[in-house]
């Protein structure tokens, strides 16, 4: 085991720490790479007939992004290992830095560092995209454009939607999945730690690339990027495409890595039947990521070709079809919906038994529910295209499969209710968030049934009803589970305690304000307000004003959360007690902070994670496993 710490000599001046493979170098080389790429692209474009006719050179932008990303990843040190392998050096894990602040700013293969990096990235851009939402709601105070020009408004909508999709896809699986999965299965690391580290830096780069659209004229398509509207758009569209390619690649790699980890790295005795449901949920999510995100990446690569090489995939006049993009996009887009839901259910079912002091009710059913959702979600994508004019004969099929998804989703609700029933509930903040999450998702899910049924979808498609529905599932469901996970695992991940009072205030304000913000939008949709419109009918102004004001307050309550995070993490730094929730989870049995290699020796798992109240239940793991092989059944 390579645990040797490479400590810097004390005589070295502090600034020398900045030189080397780290974020700073990555940013500098990224900028240099972008400049070189844009210059090269300009040269190439000058030589091409079809570019010469236009004043916009997409080749320069894409090449700039490509070389910029090469510089960025190179500066972070991601090419060192591949190059050493090219030269025949055997596998090693030199990046396994163990100490110091520096490791948070460079490629680090410690999954706990990656988890923290993810958490910070997600929180920062969650607030950026949330601020976007505030600007959107400000504009919607009036029924016609008043604060932002109409094109700026659309760019705001696109930035908010795309950034949230990118972030929320990683919101739970990134920070908590990476941090906890190896610990929960009794492993020392992920199966592919460099890939793991790469995904977090991709997740950082994607929103930044996306934000660059603002400087390139914005993009008008929202997060769905439909053509031919995208073909009309400015160079800002290139930022959207590049950012989404990055995010899609990251999703694929996260899924790949998590599946490999759970398949191969489980400690002895960690049978599939003892796997914590949090891990099961990430496995189901990882399947979706691995299989659906490549389709998105390909679709966007075709869009790149359409914009640079005159291919005609997505324009109808020349042998292509806008429907092709819609199909490819939603083939990813629907599994994506469950990439945005399943991790949250994992958090909920993981946390419920701890605070109910009971075993999880119906473990097998929960696993079946998650895998059932994952399997079905590949067969439903055309419900987004019920009125689009394709495949009318298949509509009953997609209606059936979509509605069938509510069956396995229902499994998870009865798991929750069964666990709550006759519990000895301790109503701590994480449990409050879980209950609110399930409530919100219930509304989101039930409203989804309206959209799954073609006749009612004809009324509701493309209206604010859809927008309210997806915010109930993503923010109300996954977002609330993110808070639950944060309040539950923060003491473990940082060794610090947060302000409990502020957390409770945050809960009540965010729960009430979330519902007062988004519930009226169902009504706005039913009363024929189309999504993404900067102008709307004047009789809808009262609803919109109410929603905007409620949204500002909601933003304020999110700020309470931000204040709590910063205060507890950076300022107060009040140490937390070990295992404050008296959880049986393996992660809580380890010392805080968790040692670099998690386990001194690989543990042997001898009991399930949720045996609360079981007479004579063994502790989950026996740490003194002697030299047993890893990962076996």
């Amino acid at each position, binding site marked *: 085991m390579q645990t040797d710490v490479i400590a810097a000599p004390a005589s070295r001046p502090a600034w020398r720490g900045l030189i080397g493979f780290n974020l700073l170098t990555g940013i500098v080389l990224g900028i240099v790479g972008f400049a070189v790429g844009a210059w090269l692209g300009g040269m190439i474009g000058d030589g091409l007939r079809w570019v010469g006719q236009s004043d916009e050179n997409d080749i320069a932008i894409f090449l700039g992004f490509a070389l910029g990303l090469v510089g960025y990843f190179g500066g972070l040190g991601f090419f060192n290992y591949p190059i050493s392998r090219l030269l025949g050096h*055997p596998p090693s894990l030199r990046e396994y830095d163990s100490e110091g602040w520096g490791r948070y700013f460079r490629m680090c293969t410690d999954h706990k560092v990656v988890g923290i990096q993810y958490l910070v990235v997600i929180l920062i851009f969650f607030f950026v995209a949330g601020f976007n939402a505030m600007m959107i709601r400000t504009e919607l105070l009036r029924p016609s454009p008043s604060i932002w020009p109409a094109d700026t408004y659309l760019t705001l909508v696109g930035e908010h939607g795309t950034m949230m999709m990118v972030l929320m896809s990683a919101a739970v699986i990134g920070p908590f999945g990476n941090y906890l999965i190896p610990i929960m299965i009794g492993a020392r690391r992920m199966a592919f730690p460099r890939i793991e580290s790469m995904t977090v830096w991709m997740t950082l780069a994607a929103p930044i690339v996306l934000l660059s659209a603002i400087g390139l004229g914005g993009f008008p398509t929202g997060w769905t990027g439909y053509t031919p509207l995208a073909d009309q758009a400015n160079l800002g569209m290139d930022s959207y495409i590049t950012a989404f390619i990055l995010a899609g690649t990251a999703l694929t790699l996260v899924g790949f890595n998590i599946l490999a980890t759970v398949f191969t790295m489980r400690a002895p005795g960690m049978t599939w039947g003892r796997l914590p449901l949090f891990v099961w949920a990430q496995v189901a999510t990882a399947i979706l990521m691995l299989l659906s995100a490549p389709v998105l990446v390909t679709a966007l690569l075709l869009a790149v070709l359409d914009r640079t090489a005159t291919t005609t995939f997505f324009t109808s006049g*020349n042998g292509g079809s806008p429907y092709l993009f819609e199909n490819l996009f939603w083939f990813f887009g629907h599994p994506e919906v469950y990439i945005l839901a399943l991790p949250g259910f994992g958090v909920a079912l993981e946390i419920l038994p701890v605070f109910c002091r009971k075993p999880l009710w119906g473990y097998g059913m929960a696993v079946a529910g998650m895998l059932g959702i994952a399997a079905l979600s590949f067969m439903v994508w055309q419900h987004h295209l019920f009125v689009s004019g394709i495949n009318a004969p298949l509509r009953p099929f997609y209606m059936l499969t979509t509605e069938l998804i509510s069956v396995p989703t229902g499994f998870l609700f009865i798991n929750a209710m069964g666990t709550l029933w006759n519990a000895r509930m301790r109503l701590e903040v994480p449990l409050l968030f879980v209950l609110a999450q399930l409530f919100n998702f219930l509304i989101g899910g039930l409203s989804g049934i309206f959209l799954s049924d073609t006749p009612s979808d004809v009324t509701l498609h493309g209206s604010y009803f859809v927008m309210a529905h997806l915010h109930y599932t993503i923010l109300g469901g996954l977002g609330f589970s993110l808070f639950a996970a944060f309040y539950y695992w923060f003491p473990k991940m940082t060794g610090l305690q947060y302000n409990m009072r502020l957390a409770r205030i945050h809960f009540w304000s965010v729960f009430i304000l979330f519902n007062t913000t988004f519930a009226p939008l169902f009504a706005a949709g039913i009363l024929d307000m189309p999504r993404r419109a900067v102008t709307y009918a004047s009789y809808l102004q009262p609803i919109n004003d109410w929603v905007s004001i409620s949204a500002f307050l909601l933003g304020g309550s999110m700020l309470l959360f931000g204040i709590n995070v910063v205060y507890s993490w950076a300022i107060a730094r009040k140490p937390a007690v070990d295992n404050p929730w008296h959880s049986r989870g393996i992660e809580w049995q380890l010392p805080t902070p968790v040692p670099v290699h998690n386990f001194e020796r690989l543990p042997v798992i001898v009991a399930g994670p949720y045996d609360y109240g079981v007479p004579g239940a063994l502790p989950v793991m026996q740490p003194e496993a002697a030299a047993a092989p890893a990962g076996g059944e």
Partner: protein
Amino acid sequence: MADQQLIEGEDIQAAVRNYWVGSRLWIAGLVFYFLAFAFSFLYLRSLNANHMWHPAKVQAPAVWGTAIVAALVVSAIVFTIARTALERNSLSIWRWAALVAFLLALTAAALQIVEYRELGFGPGAGGFASTFVAWTGGVLVVVLGMAYWLETIWATSIRAGTTLADTSRGERRMLAANVEGFGAVWYFVVAVAVATYGLLYWVG
């Protein structure tokens, strides 16, 4: 005892299994990556929008295509020879055959790039032309990635030198697992390339 060897801070058995599981998962991801191209092909072909799917003047150059796919198939066959040689511990045959397989993959990639210059139609000449350029490009990218992977295996075995001969050693077991995993993906990619060839050059 070999099982106690640690590679990358982890028990070697886990590392060996990672190659097996990782390569299979990678195939699963690639299936969906290629599926998007195949779907584009079949979808645009069946729509034939504005009768612009495949104008008669667009002819995929079958000579080049055959050369490319032949290089890939031969590479897979030579790789099989290399792999069998490694299993029989004939290290020098392994080294040469692996090198040839690698060079053949590179040759296929080079031929593909030449073909683009000799195409006779532009990517904008209808749905088929677009799909042709994109799908072959999609295969090309994967072939280059696989060539890189094969090169790392080959280079590792060269650098490891004679220590490889001891089949109980960790390095050797890792290499064997690596070769097995690469083989699974490479056979899959070559099969996809053959199917792509059939669709693009003969179905059209």
